[in-house]
C-alpha cells in the first residue's frame, strides 16, 4: 500500500483517521509490540523496525469520566455544567488502550454508563479540523 510509507507521527495518524477512515498505529517487527500511537522506535525492545498496523476500531470501555468543566474548545461546542460529555479509556480488541471521547452515552447519568461495554470507532463523527478518537456503544 502506498500509504504505508507515511512517517510514523501524529500527522500521519490524523490523516489516516480523517482521510482514509482507518485507525492506523504501528507494530514492531522485532517483538510484536502494538501501539495505536505511531511511534518511530519500539518502546519495548527499542527496535526501529516498525510497520503500520491497522486496528479494527473495536474495543471495550475500561474507565471513563463525565466532564462538567471542560476546556475552552469543548465549552465552545456547548458542553458544560448542564451538559457534561464523556471521555474515557478504551481497550482495543488488539490489546493496547487509548484515550477517546465516548459518544452515545448520557453524561448527566454516569451511573448508567457501564465499564466493560463494547465500543466501536465512530469515524463519521470525527471533525477533520480537530481530529480526535471517538467511540460509541457497539
Amino acid at each position, binding site marked *: 500500500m502506498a500509504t504505508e510509507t507515511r512517517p510514523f507521527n*501524529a500527522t500521519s*495518524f490524523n490523516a489516516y483517521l480523517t482521510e482514509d477512515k482507518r485507525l492506523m498505529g504501528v507494530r514492531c517487527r522485532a517483538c510484536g509490540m502494538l501501539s495505536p*500511537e505511531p511511534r518511530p522506535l519500539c518502546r519495548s525492545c527499542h527496535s526501529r523496525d516498525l510497520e503500520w498496523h491497522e486496528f479494527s476500531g473495536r474495543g471495550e470501555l*475500561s*474507565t*471513563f*469520566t*463525565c*466532564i*462538567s*468543566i*471542560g*476546556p*475552552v474548545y*469543548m*465549552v465552545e461546542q456547548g*458542553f458544560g*455544567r448542564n451538559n*457534561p*460529555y464523556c*471521555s*474515557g*479509556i*478504551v481497550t482495543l480488541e488488539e490489546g*493496547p*488502550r*487509548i*484515550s*477517546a*471521547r465516548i459518544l452515545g452515552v448520557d*453524561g448527566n447519568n*454516569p451511573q448508567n454508563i457501564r*465499564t466493560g461495554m463494547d465500543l466501536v470507532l465512530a469515524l463519521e463523527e470525527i471533525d477533520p479540523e*480537530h*481530529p*480526535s*478518537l471517538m467511540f460509541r456503544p457497539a
Partner: protein
Amino acid sequence: MATTSSRRQLGRSVSIVGAGMSGFGAFADKDSRDLFVEAFQDLLDHLDQGMDIEDIECAYVGNYSSDLFEHQGHTAPIIADWLGMTPIPVTRIENACASSGSALREGIMAIASGMYDIVLVGGMEKMTNLPTEGVTDVLATAADALYEVPTGLTFPGIFGAIAKAHMDRYETNLDHLLKVAIKNHVNGSKNPKAQFNVTIRNLMERRVTRAEQRGQPVPDYNSEMDFLNDPGANPWIAWPLRLYDCAPITDGAACVLLVASDIAHNFTDKPVTIAGTGQASGRPLHDADELTSLSAARTAAARAYEMAGVTADDIQVAEVHDCFTIAEIVASEDLGFFEPGEGARALDEGRTALDGDKPINTSGGLKAKGHPVGASGVAQVAEIFHQLRGEAGERQVDNPDLEVGLTHNVGGTGGTCVVNILRKG
C-alpha cells in the same frame, strides 16, 4: 556492555537548613516574582542563625507555566534579580506539578557533585489571573497534546477516570473521596499559611448562616457529608470528582535552603538530611500498567526507599500529592503504606489523620493548603522539615520519636513522580 553500578548514593550528604512559604491564595496584585520574594523572606526570617545572601551560590526555580499564566518565560534570571542574587546561576525546572520536586533533586545533585555548597531551591505559580476554563486549558498541557487532550480529557477528567477504575476494582466509593477532603481541611484549619485555613464543617456552617441572613431556603445538613452531597454546594467537575475533590487554583511560592551536610551546623542546630530521593517518568493513563495506580510513583518510591535504606513502614509522616482526593488514596497505596485497594479502608479507620499511625498531609495537602503547581513539591518538603523539627504548631504530629518523613510529588497525571525521604539530624 556499560558498567552501571547499582548504587544510588550521593558523593556527599545534603541537608535542609531553612524553609519558607509565601501566603497561598488568590493575590490579584502579586506577580510570581513577588510571591517568590515573599517565600524567600519567610525563609530568611526563620533561619536559625541567619545568613549572608551573598553566600548562596546557585538556585533552582520550579515553575510549571508562567509562559501561559503570565506570558513570562525565562523566569529564573528574573527571580535571581528580584532576590538580589545576580549573577549566580539560576535554572528553571519544569515537570508540570512536580516541577519543584524535580528542582529539589537538581539542587541536591548540584551540591553532591561538588560544584556548590549552598543552593536555594524554590518554586512558584501565579494562577488566579486566568478564568477557570483558561486554567483548565493550561493544566491540560501537562497531558499529551496529541493523543489525550483532543479527546476532551482534562486534568480532573483523567483523575476522574482513575477514580472510576479504583471504585470498579476496589471497595472505594464516593464517600471515601470526600473523607480525604474533610481530613485535609481539618489539617489545613491548623495551618495559618493554608489557602483554606478552615474545616469543611466551618464552610458548611457558613453556607447555612449565609442562607439564613439572606432569607433563602436554609439547607438541612446533618453532617459534612450532607453538605458535600449537595450539588449546589459541591457541583460535579469531572464525575466522579466534585469541586471539593479538587485542589484549588492558587498563587504561591515556597523555597528551601540546601547545604552540604558538613556545613549545616553553621546555619542551624536542627538540620534535616536528605536520606533518599527517587524520580521516575510515566506514560499517559491509557498506557499505564494499571488504571488504579501511578507506576512512576511506585518506581520513584522504590528508589527513594532503597537509597534511604528504609521501607514504607519506617515513614512516620508524609505529604502526598492530593491534587484530587482520589490521588491521595492512590498515593497511599503506591507508596506502600497500604496494600493496593486498602487506601480507602485506612482512611475509614482514621489511620491517615493527624492522630493516626500514618499521618498524611498534615499541612492540609494540596487540597486545603492550596496548589500553586510549581511550588507544591517544595512546599511539601517545607512541611516535613517543620514536622521533623517539631515546629508545626497546632498541626504538629504527636510523636516524640518523629525522625523520618516523606514527600510524594506528581507531575500531571503521573508523567513524573518525585519521592524524597527526609531524616531529622
